[in-house]
C-alpha cells in the first residue's frame, strides 16, 4: 500500500537514471581497478559508498525542504571551516590539497561545499522580494558565497571553482536576473581572465595550453588527452566488451577509475555505451529541471536548478575532457567516477531532487 503510493508519487525516471548511472559506474570501476593481485579492485569500497549513499538519498528525499533551508547557514559554516582546514592541514595529492584524512577515510570538503553553497544562495535569493536587478545586487548575493569560492581556488582547484560559478550563474538565471546584468557579469569575468591566468599555477596553465595543442606536452598533460581519445575511439560502435579494454587493462590510461572513467565506458561499451550514459544523464537533468519548474516556492526551485546546473556542468566538462573538447580540469563524472565524498553528496542532492519532483497529492506539500 505504502509502496504503491510511493511508486505513484516518486519520479521513477529520475530514480531509474541514477540507478543506471551508478551501476554502470560500478562496473567501470571494477573493470578499471581489477588486477591479478586484486581481482575485486575497488569494488568493495564502491559498494560501501553506494550503501551509505542510498541511505542519504532516502533520507534527503524524505526530509522537508524547510529542514534544508534552516540548516543552510550552519552547513555553509561547517563547509568553510573544513575548507580552511584543508587549505591549512590538507593532504596533498596530485599537486593539490583537497583531502582531509581521518584515519582510513579521506574526505573532500569541496564536495560538501558545492551543496552548501547551493542551499545558501537559494536561501539568499529566495528571501528577496525581487530577483537581483543589477550588478550591485548580484554582488550582494554573491558576497555570501565568495569565501567558499576563494578557499577552493586557493587549494588550488580551478575546476571546482568553475563549478561554483556555473551553479551560481544557473541559479541567478533561473531566479530571473535581467539578462543585461548577467551579460555584465560575463564582461567582468572576461576582464578578470588575465588576472586569473596569473594566479593559476604553472601546471594548471599548462593544462589549458595543452588542451589547445596536446602535442605541446605529449608525455605530461597532453598524455591524458591523447590516451583518453585513443581509448574511447578504439571502442568504436559496440565496444570491446566489459572488462576487455586493453588500454585499461594494460594501464595505459591513467586515472581510469576517477576522472577518466568515461573513457573506460567508451572503450568497453563503445558508442552504444557512451550515448547510453549521456542519455541517462539527459533524463536525470531534464527530470530534475522539470521537478524544479514544478516547485512553487522559490527556495526549492532554486535549489533544484543549482543541483542540476552543478551536475550538468560536471558532465559536460568531464565528458568533454575525455573526448578532447575541453581541457583537463580534474572534475569527476557524477555517479560514475570513484570518489566517496562526491558520490555521497551527489546522492544526497538527488534525494532533494526526488523530493522536489514527487507528485504531490492534494493532501499537502
Amino acid at each position, binding site marked *: 500500500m505504502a509502496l504503491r503510493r510511493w511508486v505513484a508519487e516518486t519520479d521513477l525516471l529520475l530514480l531509474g537514471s541514477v540507478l543506471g548511472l551508478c551501476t554502470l559506474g560500478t562496473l567501470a570501476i571494477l573493470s578499471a581497478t581489477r588486477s591479478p593481485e586484486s581481482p575485486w579492485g575497488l569494488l568493495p569500497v564502491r559498494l560501501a559508498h553506494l550503501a551509505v549513499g542510498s541511505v542519504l538519498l532516502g533520507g534527503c528525499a524524505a526530509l522537508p525542504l524547510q529542514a534544508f533551508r534552516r540548516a543552510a547557514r550552519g552547513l555553509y559554516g561547517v563547509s568553510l571551516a573544513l575548507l580552511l582546514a584543508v587549505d591549512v592541514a590538507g593532504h596533498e595529492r596530485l599537486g593539490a590539497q583537497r583531502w582531509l584524512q581521518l584515519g582510513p577515510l579521506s574526505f573532500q570538503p569541496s564536495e560538501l561545499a558545492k551543496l552548501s553553497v547551493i542551499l545558501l544562495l537559494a536561501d539568499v535569493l529566495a528571501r528577496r522580494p525581487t530577483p537581483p536587478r543589477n550588478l550591485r545586487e548580484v554582488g550582494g548575493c554573491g558576497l555570501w558565497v565568495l569565501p567558499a569560492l576563494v578557499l577552493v581556488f586557493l587549494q588550488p582547484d580551478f575546476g571546482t571553482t568553475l563549478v561554483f560559478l556555473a551553479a551560481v550563474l544557473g541559479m541567478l538565471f533561473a531566479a530571473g536576473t535581467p539578462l543585461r546584468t548577467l551579460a555584465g557579469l560575463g564582461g567582468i569575468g572576461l576582464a578578470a581572465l588575465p588576472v586569473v591566468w596569473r594566479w593559476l599555477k604553472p601546471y594548471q596553465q599548462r593544462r589549458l595550453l595543452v588542451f589547445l595543442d596536446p602535442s605541446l606536452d605529449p608525455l605530461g598533460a597532453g598524455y591524458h588527452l591523447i590516451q583518453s581519445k585513443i581509448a574511447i575511439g578504439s571502442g568504436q560502435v559496440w565496444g570491446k566488451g566489459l572488462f576487455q579494454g586493453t588500454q585499461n587493462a594494460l594501464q595505459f590510461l591513467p586515472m581510469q577509475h576517477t576522472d577518466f572513467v568515461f573513457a573506460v565506458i567508451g572503450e568497453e561499451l563503445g558508442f552504444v555505451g557512451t550515448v547510453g550514459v549521456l542519455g541517462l544523464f539527459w533524463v536525470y537533468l531534464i527530470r530534475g529541471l522539470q521537478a524544479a519548474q514544478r516547485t512553487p516556492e522559490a527556495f526549492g526551485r532554486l535549489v533544484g536548478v543549482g543541483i542540476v546546473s552543478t551536475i550538468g556542468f560536471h558532465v559536460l566538462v568531464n565528458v568533454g575532457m575525455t573526448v578532447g573538447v575541453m581541457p583537463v580540469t580534474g572534475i569527476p563524472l557524477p555517479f560514475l567516477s570513484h570518489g566517496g565524498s562526491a558520490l555521497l553528496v551527489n546522492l544526497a542532492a538527488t534525494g532533494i531532487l526526488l523530493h522536489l519532483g514527487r507528485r*504531490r497529492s492534494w493532501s499537502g506539500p
Partner: protein
Amino acid sequence: MSEGWAVRLPGEERSARRIAVLAAVFTGALGLLGLRLWQVQVLQGAYYDQLAQGNRLRINRLPAPRGLILDRRGIPLVTNRPSFSVAVLPMVVGDRSRVVSVLSRLLGIPEAEIRAKLRAAPPFALVRIRRDVGIRVLTTLEEWRTDLRGVAVIADPLRSYPYGTLAAHVLGYLGEISGPELERLRPWGYEMGDLIGKAGVERQYDRLLRGEDGEQVVEVDAAGRPLRVFRQQEGRPGNTVVLTLDLRLQEAAERALGARPGAVVAMDPRTGEILAMASWPSYDPNLFAVGISPEAWRRISGDRRTPLVNRALATAYEPGSVFKVVTGLAALRTRAADAGSTFFCPGSLTLGGRVFRDLRAHGRVSFRSGVAQSCNVMFWQLGLRVGPIPLAQMARSLGFGERTGVDLPGEVEGIVPTPEYKRQVFGEPWYPGDTLNMAIGQGFTLVTPLQVARMMAAVANGGQVLQPRLLRSVLSPEGMVLYTSKPVVVRRLSLPPEVWAAIRGGLVAVVEEGTGRAAAVEGVRVAGKTGSAETPRGRPHAWFAGYAPAEDPRLVVVVLVEHGARGGIAAAPIARQVIQAWKHLYAPTEVAAGRP
C-alpha cells in the same frame, strides 16, 4: 499550496521559462557531445583502434656494433667495449618526480638535465640518461627495479680508443647527433640519441662504420613488462675501415714531434697513401666515448692551444722557403733559369728604392747551391723574372690554394695570391715587393702541411699531383673485402726531365750540404727543403719538406713546428727521426746508392 501545473505568478512564469531555457541548453550541449562521440568512436574509431594497438607494441632497437678502424697492417686503432646505459621510457614512468630524483642522486646528474632529456624525447622512445654506468649503479637499480617503473638498463657498447691520443685527429671521436645533423641525416635511418662521428675518420666514414640496428617488436603492458616478442629482425654490425696509416710510423712521428705545436705528415708519393699524420696539441678521444661532460667540452674547445684542430690540414701557414720549390719550378719551366744558371748574391736586393736584405751574402751561387743555401736574393731574381701570375699558376698546378680532397673533414684551402686577389681583398695594386715576398713564400701565401706534402710528392714522382687518402680498404663484418682504394691523380704536371732533374738536384744538395743537413739519415739519401717562415707575431714557423730515398722516392715527410724559428734546426731533425723509423720498418737492409 498550488498543484504542480496550476496557475503561476508572473515571477514564477519567468522563472519557469528560464528553466526551460536551461533544459534546452543542456540538451543542446549533450547533443553536441553525442556528435563528438559519433565522430571519435564511429567515424575515427578504426584509426584510434590502431593507435591503441600501437600502445601495446613496443619497438626495441637492437643497437648494431659499430665497425672497427684498423691500421694498414690490421691492428685495431678503434674498437668497441661492452658497457651498460641507464635509460627511461617516459611513457611508462609511474611517479615521474620520484624517478627523476632517484636517478639524479644515483647517477650524479642534475634533475633539470634529466627532465630536459625526457621532455625532448618522443613519447614511445627510450631515453638514455647515462652511459657506461658502473657495477654499483647496476646492482642498485636491480634492487630498486620494482620501485622504479619505466627505468631500464640496456647494453650499449662503447667506443674505445686503446692508443689514447695517438692519431686522435685522424681517428676523430663520437658524439650524440645534434638537431641540424638529425634533420639532414634522418633519411639514412639516423635517430635521436644516436652517436655519430663528429670528427676525423669516425665522421668521414660514419655511414660505413655504422651498421644497421636490428628491431624487436615486443608486446608490453603499461609497466613496460614484456609479454611476448612479436617479431625480431637482426641488425648488421658496421663495416671495418682499414686505414693507410702505419701505427708504428705514426708512433714515431708523434714521438719525434713531441710536445711542440705543429704537424707531421708522412705520405707515399707513388700512391698518395698517408702513412702518418700527427698534430700537436692533441686530445684523447676516449673522453668523448661516454658522452663528454659540458665542463670538459668547454675546457677542450675553449683551450687557446686548440687541441681539436688538425694542424696538418685545418690550418694554413706561411710557407716560407719551402715555397721556393714552386718558384724554382716556375723559373725552370719558363726557362728563366736552368741547372747551369748562376746568380750573384751580395746579401741584398734593391728594388724601387727599397733594400731587401737576405740572411747573408752567398756570393756567386749556382742554381743547385742557391737552393741548398736557400738564397733569398737568387729567388727574388727568379721571382721577378717569372712574374707573379706564372708563379701563382705554378703554385696552383702543384695543388696550393685548393683542398687536397683528403678523406677527412675540416680541410682548408689556403691562399695563392695574385694581383687580382690583392685588389679584391685589400683594394690595393700589386707591388713588385709583393712578388719578392711571394717568391720566398712570404706575403699573402698560406699553405697547409698536407698541401706541401702533396707538392713534394709531385716533385718526387715526376709531376703527378695525387689526392692524399687515408682509406685503404673496407671490410665487411665477416672480413670480406668490399672495397680497395686506388690512387687518384688530380693533375699531371708535364715538365721536361731536365727540369725535374734540376730541382731534385737542388733538393738533394739541401740535405747533403745545405740548410737541411740535420735531416740526413744514415743509409738513405734524403732530399728536401727547409723553411723558416716569418709570421706577423712571434718567431718564424719552422718547416722541413722532403722525400727519400732520393733516387727512388717511397716516402714524403713534411714537418711544421709552429714558431719553431729555424727549419733546419727545429723541423729537419724531426724529419730525420721519421725517415729513420721508416727505413727501419720498410728498408732495413738498404744502403744509399752512389751520388747521382
